[in-house]
């Protein structure tokens, strides 16, 4: 805890020095990150033709990789003459770190044109002025997006301000095997009882894994019974008051987890593997269509079902952003616009492919296109309106960072 406080002090000091430094030199250097786009889209298209775009994107999901490689890449080539190169990342933070290094080295021409991200990665980059913009609200397809909605114009509470374009939405869901589990636990209290009755049959990915973070956050909402305080700017006092409950709960169930909580799966794909092997009977995902896809592929038992927690589950929007030193900002915007097009969004929603929820506001689309965004199919998937009605907002990034650190200190190490 002491170490943590020290880090915060150093961070604050660093930032103030940094801001002061920017103030001193602000007039002299033209920073692309603060200027934004002023060319027309036709000009951008013209400029982008025949160029190459590097898309840095989390590479751990085969369905996403396949969507990019088999759907997006050939169409960009055909329609816009753009060659898309996909750089797989194990963690999006790696790309942010790379950009931070380049910023510090004064490298004005980078290698990344477009990054897939949200949450703390966007916020950290924005603090260090890593993102080009504003540009995202000027795209032709931006008219299908509800920029007034806080779930779009705020990314985990951080103002987007046109520096990233919405690509899709995710909602946290729980997964269970109905052949082994009759009545899955729908609240943290029920989960406590369930793990006691079924020792070794539940676990969650270790934060800072994305899904692991989400589970701990969901546990925070569940144990405190509150959502609203965590939508406000971070407040240490509130955190110190509220957070012990969640850690107490997680420590209480720990001995009843897989491998008695001595270790945790390091990623959500590792958890999925445990579920697939029948070692655990519950899983979780940020993709509401994952269960159906895995069944269709024959990887998971037919009896797999998706369910929601009482009181709702987390949902968030994911985006693409253009780094300050992207060598091809025009091309990056053309690609982002294509990703937001109704046809690309419809293909993205295919449950046998990625199965990602659309970022578009379907009511803004022409009548004939609207029908294409049909109900998801399959017994393991929940209806769209059930998901819609049970949405909870994510806590702001600062809360999540504290929550993760606290998990390391109070749950993992104790």
């Amino acid at each position, binding site marked *: 805890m002491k*170490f943590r406080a*020290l*880090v915060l002090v*150093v*961070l604050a000091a*660093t930032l103030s*020095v*940094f801001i*002061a*430094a920017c103030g001193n030199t602000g007039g002299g250097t033209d920073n692309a990150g603060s200027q934004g786009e002023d060319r027309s889209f036709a000009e951008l298209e013209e400029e982008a033709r025949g160029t190459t775009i590097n898309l840095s994107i989390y590479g751990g999901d085969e369905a996403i990789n396949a969507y990019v490689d088999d759907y997006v890449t050939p169409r960009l080539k055909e329609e816009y003459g753009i060659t898309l190169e996909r750089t797989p990342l194990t*963690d999006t*933070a*790696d790309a*942010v*770190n790379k950009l*931070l*290094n380049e*910023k*510090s*080295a004064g490298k004005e021409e980078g290698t990344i044109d477009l990054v897939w991200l949200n949450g*703390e*990665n966007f916020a*950290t980059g924005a603090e*260090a002025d890593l993102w080009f913009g504003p540009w995202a609200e000027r795209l032709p397809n931006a008219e299908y997006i509800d920029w007034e909605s806080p779930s779009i114009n705020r990314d985990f509470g951080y103002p987007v301000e046109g520096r990233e374009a919405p690509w899709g939405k995710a909602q946290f869901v729980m997964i269970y095997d109905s052949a082994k589990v009759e009545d899955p636990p729908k609240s943290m209290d029920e989960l406590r009882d369930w793990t006691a009755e079924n020792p*070794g049959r539940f676990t969650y990915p*270790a934060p800072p894994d994305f899904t692991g973070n989400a589970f701990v956050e969901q546990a925070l909402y569940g144990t405190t019974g509150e959502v609203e305080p965590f939508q406000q700017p971070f407040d240490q006092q509130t955190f110190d008051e509220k957070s012990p409950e969640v850690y107490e709960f997680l420590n209480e169930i720990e001995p009843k987890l897989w*491998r008695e909580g*001595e*270790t*945790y799966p*390091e990623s959500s794909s590792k958890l999925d593997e445990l579920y697939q*092997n*029948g*070692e655990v009977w519950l899983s979780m995902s940020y993709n509401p269509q994952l269960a159906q896809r895995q069944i269709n592929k024959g990887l998971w038992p037919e009896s797999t079902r998706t369910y929601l927690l009482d009181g709702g589950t987390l949902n968030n929007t994911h985006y693409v952003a253009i780094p300050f030193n992207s060598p091809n900002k025009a091309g990056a915007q053309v690609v982002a616009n294509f990703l937001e097009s109704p046809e690309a969004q419809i293909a993205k929603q295919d449950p046998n492919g990625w199965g990602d929820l659309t970022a578009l506001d379907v009511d803004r689309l022409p009548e004939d296109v609207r029908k294409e965004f049909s109900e998801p199919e399959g017994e393991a998937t929940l209806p769209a309106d059930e998901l819609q009605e049970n949405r909870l907002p994510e806590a702001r990034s600062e809360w999540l*960072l504290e929550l993760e650190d606290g998990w*390391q200190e109070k749950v*993992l*190490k104790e």
Partner: protein
Amino acid sequence: MGGRIKIALLLAPALLVIGVLFASGLFAAVVQSLGYMPAIGQTEISFGAYRDVLTDGDFLNSFLLTIYVAGASTGISTVLAVLAALALRWSSERLSAIVFQLPITIPHLVAAVGIALVVSQTGLGARFAATLGLIGEPAEFPALLYDRYSVGIILTYVWKEVPFIALVVLASLRGVAGELEDVARTLGANAWQRFWYVVFPVISPGIIAASLIVFAFTFGAFEVPYLLGKTYPTILPVMAYNEYRDIELTARPVAMAINVLIALITAVFAALYLRLAKDLGRG
């Protein structure tokens, strides 16, 4: 004189690469560990990161785990390698080449995944045990991965390093040792005496050098513990990596401080070990 220049010229390219890549990397690590990062406006030199690391209980836990993993891997590998080399010393070159050289060509990463497939609770080993009726549930198979005793990591290292040490030992065994042993035999030495007084002194420099390399490698290696290790504590290189990829830039000096400490600790161990070897040689 001409000979010396020739040696210098021949060494220059290798030294240049080592100098530029290794030394400058180490230099950058030291600089960043002292908190010097102009990019985020940090230009003051401080030992804060070292203080944080060294007073943090996590570092000690990781350090002890790293010593344990590196020590156990090196110890077990060395003993098995010497035995294997002695067993195969009279065999054909061809056989020992297959036995020892094949595993050396396989990357650590592949070896780690292979071991994981065999010893995980739903792996080949567990399935085999279930077929024999030894276990009913996957969880009944002993947990050898991500476990407290780092069994999976040590197994991988032993599998990879035994052939390496054995090859070195075998080379010295096939040299002068055989002839010296024959001499000892004609003088009436028994098998144990021949090994302890004749063979062992000949092969011990090779054993020491090879096991030192293995220790230094396993102490600083990242990929196997990253794949097969427990979430906490982790070995030092994994701890440094976790700090490095922390989204908060202020964690960077801490990551670099850990890296510098890894380098220092390895150097100290190497020095102590070589000293010990020298004393042994004299004794």
